[in-house]
Structure formats: C-alpha cells, structure tokens
C-alpha cells in the first residue's frame, strides 16, 4: 500500500493506471469528519496508490481529480488531455486572454 506524498504524482500515476486497465481500476475515497482526514486510493487489484491528507486545499484538488475520473469512466479511457483541461477539449470553451488582438 503505497502512500504517495506528491499530489501531482498521485494524479498522474492513477490516470496511467486507469488507462492501462479501465475495467478493473477503481477509485476510493474515505472521509472521516471526526478525525478531519481524507484518504484516496486508486487500485487495479494489482497495484495500489494511496494519498492521505487533512488539508482543505487538497480537497479542492481532489474535486478536480473527481472530475477527471468521472469523465474517464463515463466516456472512456481515450479521453484526451483531461488532465490539462479538466474535461474533454470539445467541452471546454477556450478562454482567450489575448492582449488586444481585436482589430
């Protein structure tokens, strides 16, 4: 049972794990309000990645990861660049912060 210390590493490895075997990979979240602890686990029944925290900011990051997993699981593991945009590229409206390209 490996506890990963870096959030980004946890996200990357879990997505890799899911893409390698989407049918047996599952994502588990355990929350204990009385202890103020949150534990995340991603496993494909061969390898297991875990992440624990007591920080509110990590909960926000976890929400993004939830979105990633929802998209991957509902639509299929071939969804592109979901890590970058958080959703499929076709769904996201590109926000342009161009400096005065309007003519």
């Amino acid at each position, binding site marked *: 049972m490996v*506890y990963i210390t870096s959030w980004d590493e946890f996200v990357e490895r879990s997505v890799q794990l899911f893409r390698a075997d*989407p*049918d047996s*990979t*599952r*994502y*588990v*979240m*355990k*929350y*204990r*309000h*009385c*202890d*103020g602890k*949150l534990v995340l686990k991603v496993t494909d029944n061969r390898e297991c990645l875990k992440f*624990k*925290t*007591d*920080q*509110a*900011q*990590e*909960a926000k990051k*976890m*929400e993004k990861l*939830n*979105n990633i*997993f*929802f*998209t*991957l*699981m*509902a*639509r*299929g593991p071939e969804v592109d660049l979901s890590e970058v945009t958080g959703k499929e590229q076709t*769904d996201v409206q590109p926000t342009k912060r161009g400096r005065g390209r309007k003519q």
Partner: protein
Amino acid sequence: MVLLQLDPFLNELTSMFERSTETGSVWVTLKRSSLKSKVVRNKMATAGEAIEYRCLIRATNGKKTISTSVGPKDHQRFQASYATILKAHMTSLKKRERKDKKKSSEADKREGTSKRPKKS
C-alpha cells in the same frame, strides 16, 4: 446494496455525510462498469456491438451501502452536484496558510509522524 437513481442517491449521500459528523467514515467508490456479465459482454463484442460503459458510484458509512450508475449524459450534472455536496461537508479539514514556510514544513513533519515515519 441499494441501487438508486441519481437524485435519490445524492440525497442519501448528503444525509450519510450529515450522520457521520460525530463519528464514523464515509467511503465513496468510483468504478467503470458496463453492468453486464462477462458472458453477455463477450457476446456483444463478437457481435460487433459497442458496449455502453457507465460509471458506478458506491457510497457507504460502514453500515449501509447505496449506489448509482452514471452514464456519459448525466455525468456532468452528477459531477457538479457531487462536488457541491463534498464542499459543503468536508469542513473539518485544516486550512493551510502558505505565508510561512516554517508552518508548511511543520505540517509536513506532522503528516509524516502521524502514522509510520518513513525514512527515504
């Protein structure tokens, strides 16, 4: 195991969180599933049909388990509601201030020594 529709599931999940504030945990599991047995799936694969996958979501408080399955059409709506529920209930986590570097290193030490100390 109770299989519910999306909205009743969200309502039950909310009450589960509310009931577990003083003691107990809430587990939520996400898994991709086609909800068909292997035999049926093989048949569909050989027949050339596309297998429709859904996201299976299970929640338990140790005593009671509820579940629901989300397809690609409802997943965004579910995602939004689910995020709202989590944000509303995960209030006991600590707020971290990144102003002091000392504080963050102290928090790291605490996290490391709270369970087993790892020596890398």
